C-alpha cells in the first residue's frame, strides 16, 4: 500500500485527490470482501450452501437498496439518518392499509409514495431553510418512527397474499438469488450510471467538493439536493415494503437501526462523510462486506448483540481510519518538506485499518 497511482481509473481524480498516496479505498474494501468470501467458501461449513447464500443476499437487500441513494447523498455532502424510520413507517402503513382492506396493488405504490413525501420533507427543511441535514434527519428519525407507532401500535400484520410474500422471500429457480435482487440490480445499474456517467453525477461530486464553487458554476445545488432527498426517501419506502414481504411481518419497529448499517456500509466503502468523494462500487463492496461478515458471525453462533458491536466498531474505524492515515501522512509530508529529499521517496506504509 504505497506509491501514488496517477490517473488510475476514470474517477482517479476524485478518489485520489485527497486520499493522496493511498491506494483507492474502495478497491481495498472490494479485495477485503473477496478475501472474506474466499475464507467463507473454503473454511466455513455451510457458508456455500444455496440456502445460506440466499439468506445472506436476502438479509442484505434492504441495506443494499438504501445504500444506493445514500451514497449519492453523502457524495453531495448531506446525510439522511431517517431512512430506518422511513422504512419502518412504510412497513407499518403497509400493515395498517392491509388491515383496512386496501388491495395490495395500491398499498405498495402508496407506501413508496409516502417514502417520497418523507424524503421531500427532509429535503425541503434542508434546502429551503438551510438547516443541517444531520439535525433535520435526527428529528425525522424520531418523528417517522413515532408516526409508525401511532399507525400500527404494537400489532404485527402477517397475512399478506402468498404470491407477494414469495416475491419478497423466494429465489429464482435453484439459484441462491432472491427475486428482490433483480430489483436491486436494476437500481444499482441506474445509480452507477447516474453517479459516474451523467452530468447529474458530476454535479453531485462538485457540490460535495465545494458547494459555493458548484453554485457559481451554474449547478442548481438546492434542487439537486432536494431531488436526492426525495430519491432517498422513495428507496427507503421501497426498502420498507421489501423488508415487510421478506420477513412476512409488518411492524412499526421494523428496520430499526437500518440507518446505522447503511451509513456504516457507505462509509466503509470509502465514501467520505465530508462529501465529494466515493464510488457506487465502494458502497456495494461495503454493503456486502458487512453482510457477509454478519452471516459468517451468525454461522459461528456469534450472538446478535456481538454483531451490533462489530458493526459499530467497523463504523468508527471506517471514519477514523482514513483520517488518521491522512493525519499521519500530512505529518510525514511536513517533516519531509522540512528536510528536503529528492522525489524518489516512497510513501509511508500505512496499514489500511
Amino acid at each position, binding site marked *: 500500500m504505497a506509491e501514488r497511482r496517477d490517473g488510475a481509473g476514470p474517477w482517479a481524480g476524485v478518489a485520489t485527490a485527497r486520499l493522496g498516496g493511498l491506494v483507492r479505498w474502495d478497491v481495498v474494501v472490494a479485495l477485503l470482501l473477496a478475501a472474506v468470501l474466499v475464507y467463507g467458501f473454503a473454511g466455513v461449513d455451510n457458508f456455500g450452501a444455496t440456502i445460506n447464500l440466499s439468506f445472506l443476499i436476502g438479509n442484505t437487500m434492504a441495506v443494499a437498496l438504501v445504500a444506493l441513494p445514500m451514497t449519492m447523498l453523502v457524495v453531495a455532502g448531506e446525510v439522511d439518518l431517517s431512512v430506518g424510520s422511513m422504512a419502518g413507517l412504510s412497513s407499518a402503513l403497509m400493515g395498517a392499509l392491509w388491515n383496512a382492506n386496501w388491495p395490495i396493488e395500491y398499498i405498495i405504490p402508496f407506501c413508496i409514495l409516502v417514502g417520497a413525501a418523507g424524503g421531500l420533507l427532509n429535503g425541503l427543511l434542508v434546502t429551503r431553510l438551510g*438547516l443541517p441535514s444531520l439535525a433535520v434527519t435526527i428529528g425525522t428519525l*424520531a418523528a417517522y418512527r413515532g408516526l409508525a407507532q401511532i399507525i400500527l401500535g404494537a400489532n404485527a400484520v402477517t397475512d399478506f397474499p402468498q404470491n407477494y410474500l414469495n416475491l419478497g422471500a423466494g429465489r429464482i429457480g435453484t439459484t441462491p438469488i432472491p427475486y428482490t435482487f433483480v430489483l436491486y440490480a436494476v437500481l444499482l445499474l441506474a445509480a452507477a450510471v447516474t453517479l459516474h456517467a451523467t452530468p447529474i453525477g458530476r454535479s453531485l461530486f462538485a457540490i460535495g467538493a465545494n458547494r459555493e464553487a458548484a453554485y457559481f458554476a451554474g449547478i442548481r445545488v438546492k434542487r439537486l439536493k432536494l431531488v436526492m432527498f426525495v430519491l432517498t426517501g422513495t428507496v427507503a419506502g421501497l426498502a420498507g415494503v421489501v423488508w415487510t414481504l421478506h420477513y412476512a411481518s409488518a411492524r412499526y419497529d421494523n428496520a430499526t437501526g437500518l440507518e446505522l448499517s447503511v451509513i456504516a456500509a457507505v462509509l466503509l466503502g470509502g465514501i467520505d462523510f465530508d462529501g465529494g468523494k466515493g464510488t457506487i462500487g465502494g458502497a456495494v463492496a461495503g454493503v456486502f462486506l458487512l453482510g457477509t461478515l454478519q452471516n459468517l458471525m451468525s454461522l459461528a453462533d456469534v450472538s446478535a448483540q*456481538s454483531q*451490533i458491536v462489530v458493526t459499530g466498531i467497523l*463504523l468508527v474505524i471506517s471514519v477514523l481510519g482514513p483520517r488518521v492515515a491522512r493525519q499521519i501522512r500530512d505529518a510525514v509530508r511536513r517533516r519531509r518538506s522540512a528536510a528536503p529529499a529528492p522525489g524518489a521517496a516512497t510513501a509511508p506504509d500505512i496499514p489500511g485499518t
Partner: protein
Amino acid sequence: MTAVARRAPATEIGVPGSKRLVDRVLRIRELALLVILAVLVAGTEVGNHRFLSGQGVKDLLLNAAILVIVAAGQASVVITRNVDLSVGSTLGICAFAGGDYLRGGGSPLVGILIAVSLGAGLGVVNGSLVSFGRVPSLVVTLGTLYIIRGLDSIWVGSREIVAHDLPAGFVTLGHGGPFFLPYLAIIGLAVLIALAFYLRSYRGGREFYAIGSNTEAARLAGLPIRKRITAAYVLCGALAGLGGALYLARFGNVDSGTGSGYELTVVSAVVVGGVAFTGGSGSVYGAALGALLLTTINSVLPSLGVSSSWEGAIDGFLLLAAIAVDRLVALRVANVLRRRNVRHG
C-alpha cells in the same frame, strides 16, 4: 427586542452585532418556553384538578429530573458544536453497573459513584475519538451508541435488576423527598446550577462557547480545543451515568434494553431548549426547560386522553419545529440588520 436593536452598534461592526442580537433573541426562547409550560400546565389543571396537587407536582418533577440531568450534560457537548448520541446506551449500562453492585447490598453512594465513573470513562472514549480523530461526532457517537448497547446486552444477557434487590435507602432516594420536592429534583437542580455557573463564569466554560461559535478562531486564539471537547464529553458521560443511577433508584427495574432511544429525547430537549446544533449558543437552563416541557407534554397526554404512543412523534416534530423556528428567527434578524446597515450607509 426593538429596544435592544435601537442602540445596536451593529452599524460599524456588522457581524458581531448581529450575532449578539441573535443571541438575545434566542434568550427570549427561554421566556417563551416558560410561557408555553405555564399555559400547558394551567390548561391541564383546568381540565383535571388533580394535575397540580402535591402528588401531581411531585410526579412532574420526578419525571423531569433525570432528563434534565442528562440534557444538561448533552447541552455542554452541543455548545461545543458536537453531539453525543451514545447517552441512552451509557445511561443503560451505568444503571446496570450500579445495580449490579447494589444488589450485593452495598452503599448507595458507592453505587452512584460507580455509575458516574463508568459514564465518565465512556465519555473519555467518545471525547478522544472526536477530538483526536477529528471525525464527525455524530458518526462516531452513532457507532459508540451501538457498541455500548451491544456490550451492555452481552454483559447483562437476560438478567435484570428489580427494586426488591436494592437497598431500601437507595429506593427511597428515587421516590421520597421533603414535601412535594423529590430528592431527584433537588439533585437535578444542584447539578444544573453548578453546571450553569461553570459554563457562565469559568474560563473553561466560556471556552466551550468559544469553540462552538468558531472552532477555527478558537484554534487561532490558542484555546486547548481537544482538552475542552474531551472535557465536554466526559461531563456528558458522567451526567448520563448519574442519570443511570437515578433511573435505577426511581424505577428499580433495569435490563439490557434500558435507555434505548433515550438519546433522541435528550437531543430533542436540548434543541427545543434553544441550544443550537450549530454550537456556541444556548444555556443549560434552556436545555432544562426543554426537558421539563417534553416530560410535561408526555404527562399531559394521558390526561387529555391521547395515547402514549404519540410521545416519539411529538418529540421528533418538536425538535424539527425548534430548529426551523431558530433558523427563521436568525434569518429574519439578519435581514433586519442588513437593511439597517444599508440605510446607515
